[in-house]
């Protein structure tokens, strides 16, 4: 029994952006006696800003989308005076509501503390057992080899996208000669729509820090870098504070926890380039050079940062380590499929009802994530597919949603697990347009070094643009199919080697859409402006005139409340889609 009410507010970057500061203000004014607690992002992006109200009976009620407008209803509900407001999610007594299933459907290892603790508080982290694993290692006299062995038993694979067995990589660096070795935490998350690393760094920085300590101990590194995107100021700030606090508490620096183990970390803010997430480019960036990849071998584990053996682990990989060391590698390996163990965090986005951060056991199906956790299609339209692995990944069609979340199973589809981007697409998505979008991203983010990546990806993008504009030919499709594999085959780093994936997988699974663009000059998704036309279905129209009011070129006319009079002048229409967006009865037909 608590003696006063506790208001917990998600204040990750996403929460703040959605208005959590304002919600906190409003609530603290209403309940001045309550204790206000700030936590990281729990991952329910579609519900931000989120508030947990823990009453004196220790019952916690979760509300989403808290704002000025719906606050009175929430306040009434908190006081037990009214029905649950529409933005009520669940209570601790009954977590498994429809909306609450978003959280209950997950298995949270990496994200175990995210959204429950104050990321700036070392005490709270310690209270949740953080630094227990490294304490156990150091005080029990566990050897670095034993640490590596434990990780080996866990069969943990790199979560940054490559999926390389972590223990094996560590083994190379461990046995590489040299006094100085480096451990780098790769937090240069650059995929559009991905925010796994950000949430971890913002929500539970000490877990990542402890992971770094474990890894450093394992490989024998004395120096570490946290390479964090400069565009994540809150993550940089919180992680910086975590380093300071840990150092002050003797958890970082010389003689950690009174032992001879020494390790310290510097933060290097990212150079603002996607390619800097690539290991060799990242190291070049830390060294002060332009972030450009170099050939491997030599692998960083042998000759990396400043020529020293270097291990680069992704934030999520690191966050898993304390759990593994606490619970044992076998416990981790008990989760998942034969070759993919543990859990994986995904950033679920797109045409899905509930988007956000999701951690599920390996071996779950894609369908489980999209339908059970994500609540299926956002607008009730049939789903078409899902882009896995961001711009480097590929598109898995709806028919293959029963594919298991497993490195090899996903690779077999032509997509990749990647760092965990999951963009859901419904029938109103144009697959040509979407692959053009992803290709444009990688094209702009190419470092400009390799011929195929620098020029080849632009040529592919130009062809896709032509197809989207209705100027494509079948020869263009052939050129895409010729160039794609050649670019993959003759590029130095992962960026170029994977850039054509979105195009190649959509060509594989949605070839008919390409042909519709080229031959029939139609865009089945109703997206490509040059190929679509907006018309008003008078049967559905109510004659409300909202479309005309929003139309930027004033090409819609008709008489109020006379549906039969409403028309769009196709000569003037720019196919911006605004009318369809605002029409409540969905009377605007796009084809």
């Amino acid at each position, binding site marked *: 029994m608590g003696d006063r009410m506790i208001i917990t507010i998600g204040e990750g970057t996403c929460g703040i952006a959605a208005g959590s500061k304002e919600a906190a203000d409003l609530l603290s004014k209403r309940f001045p006696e309550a204790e206000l607690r700030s936590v990281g992002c729990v991952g329910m992006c579609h519900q931000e800003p989120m508030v947990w109200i823990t009453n004196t009976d220790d019952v916690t009620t979760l509300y989403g989308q808290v704002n000025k407008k719906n606050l009175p209803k929430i306040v009434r509900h908190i006081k037990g005076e009214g029905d649950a407001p529409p933005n009520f999610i669940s209570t601790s007594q009954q977590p498994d509501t429809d909306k609450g299933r978003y959280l209950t459907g997950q298995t949270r290892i990496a994200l175990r503390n995210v959204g429950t603790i104050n990321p700036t508080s070392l005490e709270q982290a310690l209270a949740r057992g953080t630094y227990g694993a490294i304490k156990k290692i150091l005080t029990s006299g566990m050897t670095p080899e034993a640490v590596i062995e434990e990780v080996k038993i866990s069969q943990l694979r790199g979560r940054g996208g490559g999926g390389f067995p972590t223990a094996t990589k560590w083994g190379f660096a461990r046995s590489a000669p040299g006094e100085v070795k480096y451990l780098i935490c790769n937090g240069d998350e650059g995929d559009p729509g991905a925010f796994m690393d950000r949430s971890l760094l913002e929500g539970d920085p000490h877990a990542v820090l402890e992971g770094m300590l474990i890894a450093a101990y394992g490989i024998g590194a004395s120096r570490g870098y946290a390479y964090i995107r400069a565009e994540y100021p809150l993550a940089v700030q919180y992680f910086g504070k975590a380093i300071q606090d840990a150092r002050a508490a003797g958890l970082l620096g010389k003689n950690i926890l009174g032992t001879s183990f020494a390790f310290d970390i510097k933060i290097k803010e990212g150079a603002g*380039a996607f390619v800097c997430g690539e290991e060799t480019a990242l190291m070049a960036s830390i060294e002060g050079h*332009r972030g*450009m990849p*170099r*050939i491997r*071998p030599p692998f960083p584990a042998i000759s990396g940062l400043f020529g020293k053996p270097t291990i680069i682990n992704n934030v999520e990989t690191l966050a898993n380590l304390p759990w593994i060391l606490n619970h044992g590698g076998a416990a981790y390996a008990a989760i998942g499929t034969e070759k993919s163990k543990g859990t994986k965090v995904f950033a679920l986005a797109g045409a899905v009802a509930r988007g956000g951060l999701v951690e599920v056991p390996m071996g779950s199906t894609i369908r489980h994530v999209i339908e059970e956790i994500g609540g299926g299609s956002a607008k009730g339209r049939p789903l078409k597919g899902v882009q896995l692995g961001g711009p480097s990944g590929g598109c898995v069609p709806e028919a293959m949603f029963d594919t298991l979340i497993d490195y090899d199973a996903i690779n077999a589809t032509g997509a990749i697990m990647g760092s965990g981007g999951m963009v859901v697409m419904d029938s109103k998505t144009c697959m040509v347009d979407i692959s053009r979008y992803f290709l444009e991203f990688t*094209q*702009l*983010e*190419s*470092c*400009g*070094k*390799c*011929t*195929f990546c*620098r*020029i*080849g*990806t*632009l*040529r592919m993008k*130009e062809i896709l643009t032509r197809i989207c504009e209705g100027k494509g030919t079948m020869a263009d499709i052939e*050129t895409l199919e*010729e*160039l794609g594999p*050649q670019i*993959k*085959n*003759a*590029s*130095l780093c992962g960026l170029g*080697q994977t850039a054509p994936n979105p195009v190649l997988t959509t060509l594989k699974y949605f070839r008919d859409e390409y042909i519709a663009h080229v031959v029939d000059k139609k865009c089945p998704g109703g997206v490509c402006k040059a190929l679509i036309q907006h018309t008003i279905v008078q049967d559905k129209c109510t004659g409300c005139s909202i479309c005309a009011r929003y139309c930027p070129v004033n090409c819609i006319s008709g008489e109020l409340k006379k549906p039969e009079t409403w028309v769009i002048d196709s000569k003037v229409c720019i196919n911006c889609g605004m009318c369809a967006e605002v029409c409540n009865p969905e009377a605007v037909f796009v084809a």
Partner: protein
Amino acid sequence: MSENVTIFINDQEVQVPANATIREASEAQGVHIPTFCHDDRLKPFASCFLCVVEVEKARTLLPACSTKVAPGMRIQTNSATVMKSRKTALDLLLSDHAGDCIAPCEATCPANIDIQGYIAHIANGEFEQAVHLIKQRNPLPVVCGRICPHPCESECRRGLVDEPVAINPLKRFSSEYELQYGPVVPKPAPDTGKRVAIVGGGPAGLSAAYYLRQMGHAPEIFEALPNLGGMARYGIPRFRLPWEMMDREIQAILDLGVKVHHNQRLGKNFSIADLQQMGFGAVLLAIGAHKAKPMRIANEDSPGVMGGVDFLRKVVLGEKVEMGRRVAVIGGGDTAMDCARVAKRLGAEVTLLYRRTQAEMPALPMEQHETIEEGVEIRFLTAPTQVLQDAQGKAKGLRVITMVLGDPDESGRRRPEPLKDSDEDLEFDLIIAAIGQDPDMSCLDMEDEKPKVTKWSTFVYDEKTNVTSQEGVFAAGDCSFGPDILIRAIGEGRRAAQAIDLHLNGANVKLTKEYAISRGRLKDLEMADFSPRFPHKKRALEATLPARQRLENGGWGAINMGLSEAQALAEASRCIECGCNARFDCDLRNYSTEYNATEKRLAGGKRKYDEDKRHPLIKIESDKCITCASCVRVCSEVRRIDALAFINRGFTTKIGPNFNDPLQTTGCDACGMCIDVCPTGTLSPNTGKECGPWTGEEVITTCTSCSRGCGLSVKVKENRIVKINSINGDPVNGACICAEGRFAYQIAMANGAKTPPPGPPSGALEAAKEFMFNARQLAVVVSPFLTVEEIYAAAVLARKRGGSLHYHSALQAKGAAKPNGKLFGEGNLALLQRLGAKPWGMGVGADCLVLVNTPVDTRQAAAAAKVIAVGSHACCFQANIVFSLADPLETEGTFLTRDGALAAVRPVLRDPDMRAGWRILGALSEDIADFAWLRKRLANEVPELAAVAQPFPQRLVPTDLTPVLDAVSHDGRGTAFINHMGKMGLDWG
């Protein structure tokens, strides 16, 4: 790691060093792998992905330049996948490559004359060299210079600035200038004894004869008419093309050793079969097109009607033509103009009938203008429908009809259509139909087996090789492609000669064309991209006589006076050098030719960057960059300067000076290694027309700028240094050269060293000797940077005159940091000390000073009563007598490097007068007769010189002379270089 591993290259088992890259291993096995981004001086980079190979079990293709071999590796270097990937890489690079490999003038010229090259020569005042270059493609430049309609000028990029360069007048000027001094007669290759029959002595035949003869073959021309020249003589009036000029030019061709059979007509006097029986290894048909096209109207074969070419030929042959008073000429081309003007000169009243308007007339505007000026009446939109006859059936006039212009036809011109009921009868005494001509194929009537003929009465032939349907028979000129301009026939003649040469040698007759990219047709380019970048300047106009004067004295004198020398020099400097500076040594171009790559297959958007000419010596054209980063890396890894960097990301990535600042402010010391390693024309010397670009002969020599002894690869063209590069793999100095080694030759040129230095002023030598005889104390002070021979000659001078020998060490110059950092200020000290030289300093007194290429502090000099200066650059104080000394680059000699090796300084420019340095010193000492003598004597004292005196394969000969590493300070060349940089606007410390 020196052990070997076994790998398989193209299924061949080989042993290679364990630490080799795939490329190194392959090259060692003689398997060539192409690359742009790799250079032995640089760390592997792997960006161009041209060097990809297929390795068994590898996930992707691997870049051979940076992938190390592994035991048992199975490598395919030229599988279909590999070749396809390389071609795609090249296609992609070309799709984003800007520029004109060769200037559009050259590309447009049917004979592909190196126009940019010869204009650069003209701009430098080298008219003879200009003609040498022209004659590599066109043996009749004087003829062309008078009458060529110059398609080159209509594509001239200068047209996007203001007006096209007056290319043809420049050609005419230089070739006529050169004709005055006797035409160029190149030396043919040794006789092959192979005979070629050339039927027709017109431009195509003459051109073929010229090039065949140069290849050592024995061409013989069979000419149907009394004189050579073909249409140039019989179709072009002599007031446009004076015969005296043409005759001398043709004679120059015959002087090579070309036999001519006059008045021998194919099909009348001999047949092709006859020629083959006579033992000619090949027959070239170059019979031209001398049969006038019919008008296809009624009664056109009446007496009083004749073809334009027939009329012109008759006049030249002096045959009588029944002219009457009123002459009609039908047609709107150059032949029609010529006919009208000739008829006018023969006293007729001439009316020219043309069925369209003046805007559509194909004749050159100048010709139209002059024709009208000379009083020829032109009736536009008038077409003849019938020849009117008198009672005897002789033509007495024409029925004509008025035309109106309809819709454009396939030629783009508006089609003339007759206007109903507009018939009109005009009276004429002579009607000349100048509406075109065809080859006269009746010449084949005697043959049993005939070469195939097209429906246009031309020979069926391969436009790439000039091969006809008959083995060993070739065709060129108007008879193969149909009537066209003269220069096309000349180009065809040369190509036919190449093809015939292959045929005679039993080789497969196949001619490859080098890849060349173009910025595009002139009409498709934006004036705004060119015009603001150059100062505007009017095109030079040729002087032409006024119409009244043209018609005086029969009217047969030349009417166009051409350009003056001053005009030509100014006009040549208008060329904007759009052809790429790297055209002769561009890897991108070479590989594109080899892999048959094209910029069109994967065409798309291109980067667009202006050229950066802010640095006085180095030009950067980023839109030609393939981002191999060799320049960035050589600057950073080898020179440790980091003046260059990648700029931007993604597709727009380019190479440029750091932060896009002017290169000279980024720490660049102008070593130009970036130019050296650039595989394209992105980085090039910013030297303008002084350097062409021209091809040159490569001379390997030693840099004399300091005592390091770096190897230099010097491109020399006709006594002119065109470009200096480092030698990759040179043992000295990591194969890097510095700004002085690379660019100092420009000082020599700026100082006029391309002409021999003047000999001693009259009496100066005697006066100098007088000084020295009267001196109580003579001191000879040398720069340590002279050649061994020069230093030695100075030592002999000192010894002979009882003086002392000194080297200059007092001044500390601030200079460029040399590659590898510690070079500046060391000279041939070891040698000097061995010869007993002392450093020059305040304590040394002398009343007569001989300064050899070295300045001396004014106060010290003032102490001496007499000062004699021998130097290649102006000394910094007043000497009593000054002798010039040739630039070391032009001096044969020997050089003692810092490492104690003797380095031969090869004569770069072959004029022996250039070797003046030791001679002046020799004359002063009166003890040295000639260079051989000097060297012989020196060899007795420095035994290693004996090795240098012999022809030897290596540039460097090791010696036991210990280098003395005490830094001396100054060298005259260094000062001069700094001054030169200052003049060019560079702050050089």
